[in-house]
């Protein structure tokens, strides 16, 4: 055999040799679900609200962040194992239920294969009966709200706004809205109207009502509504 053949053989062997030892399996279990109150999803802003999963026992104490989608849903892929789920204090327009005194609001979950789980939380307010309509130059909207937390932790509504955007991502932060106006906050009702920008030329528009609760950073939203113009 010529030397160059050995070199080729060695190179081929190298190609095969390097991949086996130091690679992990990829995570295999989906963890999906929604943040709900009595089964009703809680709608939040874009990339605003998150919770954290901690997996004890691996030396690393850092959390795995899970961001909520606009409709309060979440989805992530994890290794099978036992995790602790924790909402961050002050994040989201809701409070986590206390599981028991010792455990606080931490939820223990065990992932074995794909897991779907809705998480019940206690929102400050809930919106209902949202209705949207389009005029020639504006979108009108109204909704009802109900105060859920009425004890010592009750909070007022700072303001409510009607947001419009040209994509189905509608939120108060970043560039997730084109225009907004303040809505009138009555007793249990919200109403308002937001003008469509003059140069808007798509045949549809997306609207969403957001409610800012005093002292809570992340707003509560209605579901995104697509409207034909």
């Amino acid at each position: 055999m010529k030397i160059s053949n050995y070199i080729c053989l060695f190179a081929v062997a190298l190609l095969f040799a390097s991949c086996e030892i130091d690679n992990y399996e990829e995570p295999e279990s989906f963890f999906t679900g929604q943040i709900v109150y009595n089964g009703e999803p809680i709608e939040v802003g874009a990339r605003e609200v998150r919770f954290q999963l901690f997996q004890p026992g691996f030396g690393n104490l850092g959390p795995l962040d899970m961001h909520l989608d606009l409709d309060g849903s979440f989805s992530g892929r994890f290794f099978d194992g036992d995790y602790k789920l924790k909402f961050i204090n002050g994040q989201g327009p809701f409070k986590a239920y206390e599981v028991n005194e010792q455990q606080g609001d931490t939820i223990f979950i065990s992932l074995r294969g794909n897991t779907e789980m809705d998480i019940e939380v206690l929102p400050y307010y809930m919106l209902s009966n949202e209705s949207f309509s389009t005029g020639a130059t504006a979108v009108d909207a109204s909704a009802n709200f109900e105060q859920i937390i009425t004890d010592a932790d009750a909070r007022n509504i700072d303001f409510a706004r009607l947001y419009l955007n040209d994509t189905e991502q509608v939120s108060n932060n970043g560039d997730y809205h084109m225009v907004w106006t303040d809505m009138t906050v009555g007793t249990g009702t919200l109403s308002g109207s937001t003008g469509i920008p003059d140069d808007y030329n798509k045949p549809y528009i997306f609207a969403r009502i957001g409610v800012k609760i005093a002292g809570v950073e992340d707003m509560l939203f209605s579901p995104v509504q697509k409207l034909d113009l």
Partner: protein
Amino acid sequence: MIPFLLGSCSSDSEFLDREPSNILTQDQAFGSPDIVLSVLANLYNRYYDFGTVEDWSSLAQFNVAFWSEAGRYGYFQNGGYGYGDWGTWDYGYIREMNLFLERLELSEALDPADKARFAAEGRFLRASYYFTMVKRMGGVPLILESETYDFSGDATYLQHPRETESALYDFVISEADAILADLPSDVNTKSRASKGAVLAMKARAALYAGSIARYGASTPQVSLPGGEVGIPASRAEGYYTTALSAAQSIINGEVGNYSLYEKKPELSENFASIFYDKSNNPEAIFVEDYKLQSGKVHGFTIANQPRFGAEEEEGGRINPALSLVQSFETLDGEYAPLPIEDGSGNPIYYDTPEGVFANRDARLMGTVIVPGSSFKGREVDIFAGIQLADGTVISGDSRGQQKDVMGTDMKVVGFDGPIDGLEFTAQTGFYIRKYQDPKAGSGQRGTQSDVWFIRYRYAEVLLNAAEAAYELGQPAVAAGYLNQVRGRAGITTDLAAADITFDRIVHERFVELAFEGLHFFDLKRWRIAHEVLDGTPMDAATITDNIGDATKRLTQPFGLWPYKYYNPGGANDGTYIYKIVKPNRVTGADRFQFGNYYSEIGAGILNNNPLIVRNPNQ
């Protein structure tokens, strides 16, 4: 060949056994004051500034200015800040300062007076860095001696929990008291620690702690149950008292003749000179100094010089925003929008481009280069276009462009812009003046600038004293200090005790200390950052409302563009009018979240030390 290989190493092994010529032993390093000073210089050089002239953008954050550089527009197109922004966790620096102090202590060759001064300087730097950390991270582990790993496999004895936020402030204050006696009381010691610098640090730290104690109550979300973040409201009074007495020690001349800089008759030039006049400047207390042809120079003037006539093909980066410019009061001490329209909405015509800025607080022209003013003897050429009598606007998209206007060939936009999206032009209509070096060559890359960066100055001490006095219920004392600062700026109407409000204190710091890296910590310690930066876009119609309001929204930088009015043979020909504009690269509106008040502690740190608790809302 093989015997040769084996044989060569044995006989002259001592050849390799040499004293290193580039490393000093501990005895050598701490054996002479000159070398100790070199070691100390290294520690001084690593001082952490939030804003510094070495990084122009660090001084102009939070929408007090637009950044006219193509690669930086993203800063104005996002919605806010990362939780990890502004974090600092340099325990390597702390370890070296601890080692310095320990080794200095062991040294026997030094004169005791020298040794005491060096030790005091080391402790000053260490306290300064802990102050920096507590401002950004909240309470952190307080490590005051060097620690060594014993390779036992168990590092838990090196893990320390976070101290409370107040414990860190208490440490800074008590260190200041402890080292004061060992430092010189010399006004001309500016780049090394002096009694003035220590007291200025103490006053600032105590004031910050006091305001966190008092105003932290308005944001209960921004606190931790263990006190790592947040200070009990009951301690506010004590901190404010400490701040006031430390500041008054400087004001009363107990540590040297510091005073306001008042050398030049022209008040705007006088204000600008504070930052570049390095000879017998009585205002600067502690500075980061630079020297031409020494290697320690900076390029602030290169980055920010007016683009027209610049010494390099760049400049003009910091464009102060209208919100800042209009905050400068009139000389009568009134808040007023810049008069660009009369009562019925018609434009006001000015003969000169700087006419609209007449009769303003002298600090305006000392801080900002406005249209019609000059730098290095050359007038800036800022106008956005030609406006015709019928309302048509003719403008260009390159600097100093010529176009045909009603049959006449003329320049339709200034050589300094403003042109939307064209970097280095004055995209808000303004350039910065503070820190710009008027020396020839300061704008050249081969020369650069040696203007110093002032970390503590006398006017800030006055403002700190005023704020502490106000919070302690002594508005007349506060008014006295504020009036000194305002009088220097040419404001003719003095404030009375009844005029002193929280908004007044906030405003005075905003305009006096603009671009000095202090605004950010003011927003944080008063817990108003989430209101000023609330993520809501601004508009031209309301930007002129509520000037001087502490929580006035500042989520986007706006501009004020001059236009030349062209009406040959008609009224007002050749005059200037002004329009409020939003630079079109500004698309985002900044939002400061509760989780931004204290920077996130990295996952690596949390993983290595389970005793560290996380900051709130992250």
